[in-house]
């Protein structure tokens, strides 16, 4: 190691950039060379430059504390995460396979439930999933696509093997950071990219629009597509408007929409205009106060009825939450075998279901060594990391599991891979994950890479932005660029 990385230690973890003996991995070699030409002052200047760019562009998310929300920028780490071409090909195949199975599963759940009848998944698991929507049984959605946009979280264990940690099949967020991070890196380190063979990511909005247009009701060749946002105070508002802008379509709030004759219209200066496809960034629960939560002010009364009549399509479909329930997750490898007759390309992390008696016994006996997760929480909430937890927390979760076995799962602690990250003026290893974004339309498209999230706190395994996580640019290399020249 040299220059800026002189003091860097892998500390026994799987490190993305360096091998255990401190030798740089081949696909990082040139990056190390270019960084090594830089002194600390230059690097810190670049960092400040990137930060002020995010601030000035208003690339912020809102953190709620007390009754006042404050806008913050997401910490952005300047050391990119690099994925070689062959590694990415493997991930792509696995992700595509997984999403195919999840979509078939959702169709099955809301139709014949073959998978239950043939004894692969207990009926009870589906029936009790928080986001299962019996109202939608029998409903056909255009092209049988339920999850149009999937964000699948991947992690690497101690030996570098990739695992699927969870599937986000409702409203996965973060893709705007993939695009903005790349812009920021290009602005700050223009020379870093030359001849590295980094695959571009900027076609995502066009691919998303194509996928949304493809699922218009009745095969309408020129549908009106909109993004539905809860509004400017939502923590992901920046992303909603970013995507609308990049796709060149309207962004609407519930106040802009009205349902008449089971059709959805938006209120314009020239009267009502019918809407065909809604890329909604509002959870099922809040979408329609006449069907789901009555107190929702974010929703559009009557929209679910219009959807059921087939006059408007929603992406993602209603009821996809049954597929990203953490108990359902346990069954995804079985789904892949059941629907596709294939072996899963990307494995799950070992998972114990507290709903199963023998598993529950094991969980309760080993709480201090396990990660426990609530089946229906996300964003790093409702989660306990045994080895880092206090006695009280462990007992709290013990009681919760006994009271609601269906509500929890447990997994061994995965020693997530680390990547060098800039902390307090030096480089230190920080744990990371990867969220690729998979689009399903006429074809399945995955933008090269995805969002690499970093747990910026030392030793922390929680990468969520609401828990102080940051992000990195993610580089997928072109074929034939694996060997440094």
């Amino acid at each position, binding site marked *: 190691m040299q220059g800026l990385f002189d003091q860097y230690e892998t500390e026994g973890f799987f490190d993305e950039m360096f091998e255990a003996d401190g030798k740089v991995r081949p696909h990082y070699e040139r990056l190390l060379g270019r960084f090594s030409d830089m002194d600390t002052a230059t690097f810190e200047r670049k960092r400040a430059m990137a930060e002020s760019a995010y*601030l*000035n*562009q*208003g690339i912020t998310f809102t953190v709620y504390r007390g009754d006042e929300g404050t806008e913050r920028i997401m910490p952005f780490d300047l050391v990119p995460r690099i994925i070689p071409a062959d590694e990415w090909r493997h991930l792509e195949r696995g992700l595509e396979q997984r999403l195919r199975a999840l979509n078939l599963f959702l169709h099955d759940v809301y139709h014949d439930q073959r998978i239950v009848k043939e004894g692969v998944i207990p009926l009870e698991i589906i029936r009790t999933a928080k986001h299962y929507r019996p109202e939608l049984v029998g409903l056909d959605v255009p092209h049988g696509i339920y999850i149009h946009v999937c964000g699948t979280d991947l992690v690497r264990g101690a030996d570098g093997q990739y695992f699927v940690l969870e599937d986000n099949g409702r409203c996965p967020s973060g893709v705007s950071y993939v695009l903005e991070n790349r812009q920021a890196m290009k602005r700050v380190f223009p020379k870093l990219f030359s001849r590295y063979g980094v695959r571009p990511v900027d076609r995502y909005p066009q691919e998303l629009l194509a996928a949304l247009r493809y699922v218009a009701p009745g095969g309408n060749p020129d549908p009106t597509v909109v993004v539905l946002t809860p*509004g*400017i105070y939502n923590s992901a*508002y920046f992303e909603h*408007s*970013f995507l*609308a*802008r990049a796709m060149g*379509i*309207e*962004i*609407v*709030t519930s*106040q*802009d929409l*009205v349902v008449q004759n089971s059709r959805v219209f*938006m*209120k*314009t*200066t*020239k009267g*009502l205009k019918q809407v065909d496809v809604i890329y909604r960034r509002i959870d099922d629960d809040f979408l329609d106060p006449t069907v789901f939560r009555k107190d929702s002010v974010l929703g559009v009364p009557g929209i679910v009825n219009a959807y059921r009549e087939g006059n408007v399509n929603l992406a993602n479909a209603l009821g996809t939450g049954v597929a990203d329930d953490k108990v359902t997750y346990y069954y995804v490898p079985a789904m892949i075998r059941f629907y596709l007759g294939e072996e899963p390309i990307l494995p799950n992390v070992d998972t114990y279901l507290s709903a199963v008696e023998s598993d529950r016994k094991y969980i309760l006996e080993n709480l201090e060594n396990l990660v426990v997760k609530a089946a229906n929480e996300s964003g790093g909430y409702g989660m306990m990391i045994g080895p880092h937890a206090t006695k009280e927390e462990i007992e709290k979760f013990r009681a919760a599991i006994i009271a609601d076995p269906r509500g929890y799962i447990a997994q061994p602690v995965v020693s997530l891979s680390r990547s060098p990250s800039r902390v307090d003026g030096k480089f230190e290893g920080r744990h990371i994950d990867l969220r690729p974004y998979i689009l399903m339309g006429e074809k399945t498209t995955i933008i090269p890479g995805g969002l690499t999230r970093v747990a910026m706190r030392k030793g922390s395994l929680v990468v969520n932005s609401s828990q102080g996580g940051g992000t990195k640019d993610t580089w997928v290399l072109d074929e034939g660029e694996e060997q440094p020249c």
Partner: protein
Amino acid sequence: MLSRVADSCFWLSRYIERAESSSRILDVNMQLVLDFEALNYSDSNQQWLPILATLEDQELFLQLHDKISGDAVMEFITFEKTNPNSILASVTHARENARTVREQISSEMWERINRLYLYLQSPSARAAHRESPIGFHRTLVENLHSFQGITDATMTHGEGWQFLQAGKFLERADSTSRVLDFKYHVLLPQGEKVGGNIDVTQWMAVLRSCSAMEAYFKISNGRVSSWEVAEFLILHDSFPRSIRFCVDSLDSALHRISGTDRGHFENEAERLSGLLRSNLDFANIGSIFKTGLHQYLEETQIRLNGISNALAETYCRWL
């Protein structure tokens, strides 16, 4: 275009213009106070009363402060968060509106206004204001002008842009009427005559605050009188801050939005703006002074408000 978006564009533009207007009025008052101090008139603090009257903020100010001082008034108009018309509040509102129409306006426009907002929130804005309030307000106006330039150069001149124009010119007409009216609230010190030194100084300050001094002197043969300054700022047909010019531009934007020919109307907003525009086209300054300048300006403000309401009813709140 979405009704909500049209509404936000309109108000975004009004708030930008309002911030500029407050900044200009403060600027002119500071200059007047300096002139007064130079002339050795006592109690220059009293000179800060009219500005509150002009901006219709007197009541709130007196709730917050026991006595009037230049520093308190400047702070109140520039940074006071609880004053809904302060410059900081206007820029904050403008930014909120811009955020809701991020996909309609250009990134450059958004970035300009977001940076201005971040600056106004920062300690360096306070420091700059302490160092030189006049310099601070000049910079502020420059920033707002740069927003206008960026808007014209980077945004499609379609429907959204026309709503921005409508908001801008409506607010600007209102602003010019208030600056003119400001002179009405500024009393001449005892013993000073209309047309005397102080009177002329005050009228020149009014011109300066509308960036109108140079344009005015090109046509006035060096005379400064209430009559002529008012005529210039109300009725000039091509000075971009005259009320007539602004109402004409407002009327034009409204007609471009609906596609109706000028001189005709299709909705109440167009009818009212057309009416005001033709009044201005055929008015003369004699009749205005006969009505009374103050009263005429107040009526104009009410009529502008009527156009604003009609526009909202027509395009934004129709359902």
